[in-house]
């Protein structure tokens, strides 16, 4: 479908009439084409045999994406909507297989932008080996939404041998991250607030399935999470709450891109609290530490993986500073605000 610069989303695109049918036929169905979707029923019909051949449990997850700006270095809201949900499914150990997507479009959104977003979703889904099998489109009046909101839900199958979960975490376990921290959050902050620090700031938005796949063969993997909103700090608190253990990480071992560090130093913010969209926090038994690290570093998405700390039996989350003194790593109570001096 060739849209011109003048073509925008109108209320007619959400009316159920011709304009809507045209948009679905010529944009969504073409981009996401797959057997289940192409049946054009009100629901995707998925053979159970396909799922049961992979594992014995479903992993099912949903998330909504409302980012501003919708395009950023390293991706856009569409790529994010696929990566985010695929990763949420994959960190359970599941093989992600099917996605749904729901669009809420603001009247006036340029159709060329929507096309770019949809294509990006299709490409990301194809690369991740997942099919977008059902969807929905709504249009709201200008001002009632911010350009485009996307909800995705995903289903994957967990192999019978995989029992990952935060309740398995034990004192003495190792804490790893799969790469540099805060890249997505710093990139978005830089764009949104016009900080003018373009150099070397790129979102880490990525599908983590191929990075996770080899971890299924390692004994001693306890739990995985992708460190999105709230960053690594939030995940460590979630792990601590679920396991009743403490988390102690070393400031000197944290991998942080120097441009991200620069943003944080300038604004008095903490890279540990910044969002990532392509990073894992992993807890493993001590004997699995080196095998996990090697498996992560063998993939381009995990080349900067590091062991950052250990699980303790004192139920608190703390950071050991570069001079040896420890401090609490508090869960941020709201959106971080920059300091004035």
């Amino acid at each position, binding site marked *: 479908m060739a849209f011109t610069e003048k073509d925008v989303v109108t209320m007619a695109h959400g009316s159920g009439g011709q304009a809507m049918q045209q948009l679905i036929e010529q944009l969504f169905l073409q981009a996401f084409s797959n057997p289940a979707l192409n049946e054009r029923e009100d629901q995707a019909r998925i053979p159970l045999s396909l799922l049961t051949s992979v594992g014995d449990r479903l992993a099912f997850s949903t998330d909504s994406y409302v980012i501003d700006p919708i395009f950023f270095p390293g991706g856009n809201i569409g790529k994010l909507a696929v990566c985010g949900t695929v990763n949420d499914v994959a960190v359970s150990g599941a093989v992600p297989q099917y996605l749904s997507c729901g669009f809420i479009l603001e009247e006036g959104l340029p159709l060329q932008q929507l096309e770019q977003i949809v294509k990006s979703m299709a490409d990301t889904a194809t690369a991740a080996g997942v099919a977008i099998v059902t969807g929905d489109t709504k249009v709201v009046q200008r001002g009632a939404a911010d350009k485009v909101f996307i909800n995705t839900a995903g289903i994957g199958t967990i192999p019978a041998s995989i029992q990952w979960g935060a309740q398995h975490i034990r004192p003495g376990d190792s804490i790893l991250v799969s790469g540099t921290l805060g890249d997505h959050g710093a990139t978005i902050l830089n764009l949104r607030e016009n*900080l003018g620090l373009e150099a070397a700031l790129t979102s880490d938005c990525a599908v983590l399935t191929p990075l996770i796949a080899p971890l299924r063969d390692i004994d001693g993997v306890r739990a995985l999470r992708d460190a999105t909103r709230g960053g690594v700090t939030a995940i460590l608190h979630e792990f601590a709450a679920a396991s009743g253990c403490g988390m102690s990480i070393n400031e000197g071992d944290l991998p942080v891109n*120097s441009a991200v560090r620069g943003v944080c130093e300038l604004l008095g913010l903490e890279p540990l609290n910044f969002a990532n969209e392509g990073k894992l926090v992993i807890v493993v038994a001590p004997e699995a530490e080196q095998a996990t690290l090697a498996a992560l570093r063998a993939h381009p998405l995990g080349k900067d993986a590091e062991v950052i700390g250990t699980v303790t039996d004192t139920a608190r989350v703390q950071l050991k*500073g570069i*001079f040896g003194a*420890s401090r609490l790593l*508090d869960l941020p109570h709201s959106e971080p*605000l920059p*300091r*004035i*001096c």
Partner: protein
Amino acid sequence: MQYVDEFRDPELAKTLLAHIRHKVSAIAKASERPLQLMEVCGGHTHAIYKFGIDQLLPPEIEFVHGPGCPVCVLPMGRIDGCIEIAERPEVIFCTYGDAMRVPGRNGSLLDAKRRGADVRIVYSPLDTLTFAEQNPDKQVVFFGLGFETTMPSTALTLQQAKRRGLTNFSIFCQHITIIPTLRSLLEQPDVRIDGFLAPGHVSMVIGTTPYGFIAEDFHKPLVVTGFEPLDILQALAMLVDQIHDGRCEVENQYKRIVSQQGNALARKALDDVFELKESSEWRGLGSIAGSGVQLTPAYREFDAELRFNTQEHQEVADDPLARCGDVLTGRCKPNDCPLFGTRCTPQNAFGALMVSSEGACAAYYQYRRGLA
């Protein structure tokens, strides 16, 4: 990272710590009480807690967290004034981020934003001029807040606004100046401070000369310092050297940034735009003569309070149980306050020392609460 990592070298830190320990043990033999050293600035407070400097020092050194965080000493009545203007339908109200959560009597600017006020966070006051030019039918108001650190950028913004002939731009002026407050602190009979770490960024503008009275009139040593951990440790070493030697001088650890005379260009802009006002209210400390500024007659047309004829807000009495003022003057530690961590937390801050991440109570809560 250049200009950061070299000031965080653990080996150099060990050397400085050993020096401080050695000197302090000699001082301790001659004294029966710990040294109380005031870090005037909230930025120092934050760095001390963040890097655990307080834990690395011998117990004979106690930090007193001074009044040098402009958000911490911001009185409730001033926030009420901001909200009164921000809630006018024609106003776009612009502020630095960390003023958003400071509570007034009717909530914070964040609450006003939730109620529908057009409140925007800016990183540079110059951005507010762009808003004014892009929104000729709106009144753009900038909340000018802070010490001499942020004053020059407000002054340059006002000079630009005047040059561009902007009639829909004004500032709510809450700029304050640290020197009269330090004098007032030292004049109080029961405040016992053995030495001062003075703020590097304020000093970058005013220079080191204005601190002279602290050494000359009050016989206290003072070291101007930067914000990296090695800056602070080196300044502490210089301070304990002075105490050990019985000297009281103004010394400058932050020579890479601060000169004796300060920044003449910035001071010229300040003189053009601001003049001292009779007195200014500080949260937790009360009114202090000559500690605030107002716009000079040439710039008074940009005074938001005059333009919008805001009500004269009464001083808001703090809860008698709250000990914000005692923390600010070294009479107690944050966790000695009965409200600390109960009625007063970062999620529900009663006192502004808990609102700003630079506040002594917030830093103590964030980094020390529950640590053995």
